[in-house]
């Protein structure tokens, strides 16, 4: 990948924790600056401009020993606001002489075309389950653990091809029970279990009262810093399991609608709850209809 340095900015994209960051680390050197500007919320525009400007304006001290440009690595570019992306495009062009950028993003869909067209896109796919299994085995070998294959497969399957998650859950499994047994249960984060419980509560009873209880559960999740987007995604995944074909489509549409509204608004709980209420009313109608069909 190194040859691309001389000419172009690179855009790496790929599913969450594919190895895109790792690969960049492995080729990284001390001329790099790595920043995650999306942490700065709506100040991201200023952060980007400032960083690139300062990085680019300073010339390299020793051009013979080093390359004649600097490299800035920006992570989570897709989380940047549109404003910041436009600013990025401009600064990128302006300082092309002294500065190269490596942009890292989970998906290119949220990046404006103006940036896309200025970068060399490199897609880094998420590791396959096989790869994950082999990595899990190398790691456990290095740590002096014996990892049975079925467990490794199970972990790899549960990890959604997310390598970091696979490794974390391997370690969590180890703390829970060692030596491993092949049929051992793969540890899931508490909030996922809790979210599953919330979904069951929603399916069990559809009334304003039960919604009030569900609200408490959502609060519990929020207080553990689970982002509302994740809650939406998880809830939908669990709820859809209880629906049949046509209903699945409707529920997914509702979720998308309310999540979009959540992005427009500022208080997530209204919209999460609106989705749950909408689901409840649709589900209740569906249940009543199917009951009347039976009789």
């Amino acid at each position: 990948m190194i040859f691309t340095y001389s000419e172009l900015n690179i855009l790496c994209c790929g599913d969450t924790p594919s190895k895109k960051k790792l690969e960049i680390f492995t080729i990284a050197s001390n001329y790099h600056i790595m920043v995650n500007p999306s942490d700065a919320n709506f100040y991201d525009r200023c952060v980007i401009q400032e960083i690139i400007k300062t990085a680019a304006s300073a010339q390299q001290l020793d051009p013979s020993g080093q390359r004649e440009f600097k490299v800035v690595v920006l992570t989570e570019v897709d989380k940047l606001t549109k404003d910041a992306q436009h600013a990025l495009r401009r600064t990128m062009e302006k300082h092309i002489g002294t500065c190269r950028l490596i942009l890292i993003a989970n998906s290119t869909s949220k990046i404006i075309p103006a940036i896309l067209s200025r970068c060399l896109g490199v897609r880094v796919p998420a590791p396959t389950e096989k790869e994950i299994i082999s990595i899990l085995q190398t790691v456990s070998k290095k740590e002096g653990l014996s990892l049975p294959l079925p467990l490794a497969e199970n972990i790899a399957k549960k990890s959604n091809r997310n390598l970091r998650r696979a490794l974390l859950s391997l370690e969590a499994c180890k703390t829970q029970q060692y030596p491993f047994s092949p049929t051992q249960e793969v540890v899931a984060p508490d909030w996922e279990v809790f979210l599953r419980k919330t979904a069951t509560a929603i399916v069990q009873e559809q009334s304003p009262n039960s919604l009030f209880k569900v609200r408490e559960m959502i609060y519990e999740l929020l207080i553990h810093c689970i982002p509302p987007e994740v809650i939406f995604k998880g809830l939908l995944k669990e709820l859809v399991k209880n629906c049949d074909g046509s209903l699945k489509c409707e529920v997914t549409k509702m979720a998308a609608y309310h999540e979009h509204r959540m992005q427009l608004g500022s208080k997530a709980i209204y919209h999460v709850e609106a989705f749950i209420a909408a689901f409840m009313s649709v589900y209740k109608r569906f249940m009543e209809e199917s009951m009347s069909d039976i009789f």
Partner: protein
Amino acid sequence: MAWVSSTFNDVNISVKDRKRSKTTQASKRVCINPWVDEFPPLTLDDVAIHKKKLQEVQNWLIESNLRSKEKRILLLTGPPGSSKSAVIHAIARDQNISLREWVNNYSSNNDYFKENYNDLPFRGYETDFTYSQAERFSDFVFRSSKYKDLSKALNTSSNLVLIEEIPNVYVLNPLEFHRLLRKYLICCTCPLVFIISETKNNNLVKSLFPIELQEELHITNISFQIYIILTLIQYQLVFLQNAINRILNLTSNSNSPIFDSVGTTKKQFLQMIAEKSGGDVRSEEADGATKAKKDLKRKAKSVEDFIGCKDSSLILFRALGKVLYCKREKCVEKNTNNLLPPHLKNQERDSLLENPEDVFERSDSTAASFNLFLHQNCCPFFTDINDFSAAINYLGDGDIFNAYWDPTHSLENYVSSVSIRGMMHNIKRDKTTTPQTFRSLTRPDLLNVVKVSNERLQKMKHLNKYLPIGTEELTSMYIPFISKIISNSNNEVDKFTKEVGLIYPAPLNRISSQTSNTSLTESFFEALNEDEEEFHIEEIED
């Protein structure tokens, strides 16, 4: 030097004159000033605060004098009226420390300002508008920490700089403030005390004194609490009562026959004041004063009305009730036949008794917070999930309107209108059922949820700032797993991680003890990218 001669010669009383008249007449008049100002706590025993907190503050003062560079800055936080400034003043008086206070002055021609600056070479602050507030502030901080108050220089032991108000410049630009503090630590010798009141929506402490800065500059943070909240009611009551007793004694010594009229109920009365005030000493004293004036005429039984309920939320709850109970006119005549087409018949409602806009107007709150209260309390008023779904959609609409930020709040009324009307329209009450029973209304939990989760998120980010992963991954994957991996220890960080990551408390007894502290994943990642460290260092420097 006046540019224009005053046309109010007849009312022109100089400050000095006023002061003198006050001291001479104090014995005659009873309540010129509020009791709060009239009777500040003079000795350490008078301050209504727990002994431990007092000890903490005193300890800090001793330490700050011993060590040269560390622990020079003290930050006192707490709700208004929890005796923060009283403690400092009392300690200063007790240990004979000369206290230098900063006062935000808005007009440049302020007598108080000059008084405070009488030891500085006069630099024409009075007419010179070129000095910004920030400049004055830093000037004050650096100079007054070096030089003692001339008037008291001989008989005071040391100096203490107290800052209760922070210039607005720094509120907008905390980095500048942090720079000032760092500079202060380098060149100054005298301890510095900041006092910041914590109110509900105030994140001044967070922005001006973030955790990183507190660690970096060794700022000691002592937070005062209202004891009512912490089950220490008894303690606090005693303290508060002592405080009030002392004041009442002082006043009754002078002349007032207040407590003859109250007589035996005195003790109950005190207890009542103490409870009502919610731990705010200042409001207590103010209440006491109000009562003292009125009590001469009324009997002790009606006192309760006067001990003003500090809760302005009563008005809010009344408005909430209006919306949620949603009274409609009894349909007298059915001439509404033609108003709605048949397919919309189910949307037909009797007309409302109260105009929703008026209700909101009277509630004396912002649309966003009113919606929060509605949201918190609406559940029991619905019986059908369809209605509820519709109503909460309107709340969502309101939220979306509210998210468009504009400085004139032009959408405010629409926000409230949409959500209140949406809510009222969908609350259907059967006319056949008996009138609804009393339901207690509560404050929204969401505020607390948002506050706690924001604090946790910030802390989490700070603790894990070297991890190359995004926020979402951090909270929804890394922390939950790590909290399962780490062993139970008393380590502050581990405890915090467990608190956030685990939803149910983990079983305490673990069979296999943890062998190594570094986690597998970390060692793996480290092995792969050894120069990761260098990245971080550069990041910090930037």
